């Protein structure tokens, strides 16, 4: 497929898909908490943008609603909540020393290739012009998991979790113009509640081990001391 042949909006979609992937990499590499949250917010913005564009191209009006939802939740509400929590827990300036980011980024790029390899059958099968972006969505999901695996800080893990959600949502949009409305609403609700609960947990964790370092949550295990 030749990018030049596509309409501007399609090109825009593809471009922003690339940007989303980029934001995922930023989250992977970013050691500070606050920029991490910003990166996540940007990802949300881009996602909303894409949703709107897809709605524009495909004329699927219900996608506008989900675009709005995305913007509201992923771009503003959740980042804002996270930030506020970070401030209240006074961790927004914390720096998490990564073992070695370069290896991490290497693995990340390997994951991108892998996800492309995985999504090939889907891509062949799809009728949409922007189908190649499916690979990106898979990559975003896997990168999100990688973030959760790589990060010790609870907030970072939440961000990774949320970016997985982004990836899913992204996939839904670009591969199938989104899910049925009722499902979308349900998912949105769950995400919201999840975010709130995460907030609650930060305080509980903080109260129990007076830090948000999840690597210290290892009392329950089967290895004999």
């Amino acid at each position: 497929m030749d990018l030049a042949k596509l309409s501007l909006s399609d090109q825009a979609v593809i471009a922003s898909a690339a940007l989303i992937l980029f934001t995922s990499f930023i989250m992977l590499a970013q050691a500070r908490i606050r920029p991490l949250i910003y990166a996540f917010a940007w990802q949300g913005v881009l996602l909303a943008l894409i949703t709107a564009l897809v709605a524009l191209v495909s004329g699927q009006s219900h996608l506008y609603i989900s675009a709005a939802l995305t913007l509201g939740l992923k771009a503003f509400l959740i980042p804002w909540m996270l930030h506020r929590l970070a401030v209240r827990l006074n961790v927004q300036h914390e720096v998490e020393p990564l073992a070695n980011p370069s290896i991490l980024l290497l693995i990340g790029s390997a994951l991108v290739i892998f996800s492309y390899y995985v999504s090939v059958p889907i891509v062949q099968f799809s009728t949409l012009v922007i189908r190649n972006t499916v690979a990106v969505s898979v990559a975003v999901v896997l990168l999100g998991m990688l973030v959760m695996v790589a990060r010790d800080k609870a907030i970072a893990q939440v961000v990774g979790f949320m970016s997985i959600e982004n990836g899913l949502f992204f996939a839904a949009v670009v591969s199938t113009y989104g899910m049925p409305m009722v499902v979308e609403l349900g998912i949105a609700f769950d995400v919201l509640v999840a975010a709130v609960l995460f907030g609650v947990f930060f305080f509980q964790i903080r109260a129990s081990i007076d830090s948000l370092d999840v690597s210290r949550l290892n009392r329950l295990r089967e290895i004999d001391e």
Partner: protein
Amino acid sequence: MAALDIAYVAVLAAALSGVLPLLVARRRYAQRVAFALLAVSAIAAIVAGASALTGETTLAERLPLGLPWLKWHVRLDVLSGFFHIVIGVVVLATSFYGPSYLREYESGQNDPTVLNLASGFFIAGMLLVLLADDAFSFMVAWEVMSVASYLLVTFQHEHAANRRAGFLYLLMAQIGAVGILLGFGVLATFGGHFTFDAMRGGNVPAAWASVAFALAFFGFGMKAGMIPVHAWLPEAHPVTPSHISALMSGVMLKVAIYGFMRFTFDLLVDVQWQWGVAVLLIGAGSALFGVLYAYVQQDLKRLLAYSSIENIGIILMALGLSLIFVGGGHPVLGAIGLVAALYHVLNHAVFKGLLFLGSGAVLYRTHERDLEHLGGLIHRMPVTAAVFLVGCVAISALPPLNGFVSEWLIFQTALQAPALENGVLRTLLPIAAAVLALTGALAAATFVKVYGIAFLGKARTRHAAHAREVPRGMRVGMVLLAALCLLLGVLPTTVIGVIDAIPQLLIGQRLPSATAHGWLWLTPVSPDIASYSAPLVLLAIALSFFIGRRLLPARQVRRTPPWDCGFGPLTNRMQYTSTAFAMPIRRIFAPVWHVQEQVEVTRRHEADAPPTGLRHQLHIEDRTWLALYEPIGHYVIGAARAIGLIQTGSVRTYLLYSFLTLLFLLWIVT
């Protein structure tokens, strides 16, 4: 009322004997009710079995229980009838014995109603196993039996040893049961259904038949206590109340034998002689190993438990011979082996029951199980001593009592080896017979030791010195079994005339010649090959007594202290101990046991001074523990530790797992 209904009565009465006492307020009456019901159950079982056996009838029907498409099939034929009698006899004796015996448990801290409940369901389960005619109900009954007996083993759970025994027992019962289940599964796969009828019908390929046989042999053998999967037996049997030990050793092991016979001779339609060789060898091993271990035991009940292993080995040898002959195309000789096995099943049930009840009586009065603490009981407990002696003579396979008949039949079977084509077998069988002879001789030695140390000589402890004869109920129970020992020993021809309906059912062959010459002469093959007339033997012995004691009585009898070599009077500590008695055999067969023996000599000061004290410690351990069980345990624990390593406690690791699993799956599907 048909025999089958009577059999139901037996089962229900047994179950009720467990349940009803819960409703009775006062414990004393509760016990009475329980054992009265057990007696009813026992008599019903005997009647049902006898009518099925003598009438040679086969009754079958379905019960509205079980799985939707697999109702419980029950069936009562000559084989199960015979085992009904075996169970009934011992249970009857127990129901006389129990009420008085359990008195001392009523004051104990363990609720005897649990005992009633468990033993009731234990017996009901055993009877149901005999009735079951499909794999599902069989397994249900089988496991009910196991669980109930487990509760009996752990009844006095304040002792750690009992808990350990119970755990080992239930674990091995579980493993064995799954083995049996798999065996049935193989048959059902080819038979098309889980009913035994379907399995009989199914034509199983030889290889699969062998697999099924191996599984069943493993499973049933584990329950029967064959070497090397016997470890639970010497732990579990001694720790139950004695009348339960009598049931477990005397009857439950036989139920396992029943299962094995049902599976091998009945369900696996055409047997292969190779199986027979396997059974014969393992049987010989169990017999020899069992008796050697029994010989060195101190604990009376533990000794009896090991001797049960020996007798199971003997039964297996008979079955093995029978399999060899049937597989080799000599059904008549196979029938002799089968009859020998069945006869020994009955005999062992009777005399082992008797011996355990006797040991219970000793325990009841002296609270001692250790032989070294007994002695001289023949003066204090004459009846118990007499019946125990009968049991010892019977189990040592001495004429004219019953143990001898079955072993003699086994010898006769083995000596038919020339009929076989395979020369190796022709040599193997007589050697097996020689092993049997060795076993018999060692058994005799063992029980000389038991009786001589426990009942003869002088009392070694205060308990033994102040023992009294046991109450009437217990005596009745024991005398009943003792009388049976004598009857079964003296009238073998009659008994065989009844039970040779079973080979007719299983291998379509009777023993016409065995009973051909009247009740006086037992001629299994033909009179000019071998004959035995137990009644005449008994007559002769009685005659010599008559002549000696009545016709020419001794003029005067003088009682004097025994010859003490001139060193003052003999004390009871100068007697030969059971350890000393067993020492020569222990040295001759040393490699069999794992013996730790240490002698500490304490001297006053310098090395050559005369010793002031001498301490001798002897610890004899079962080799199979070290060789088989402990390694397995270690493997499992090691594996568990290894698997524990994956659960690090770090959420990141766990995420990594699911991440990698995802990648892995994606990779394999694309």
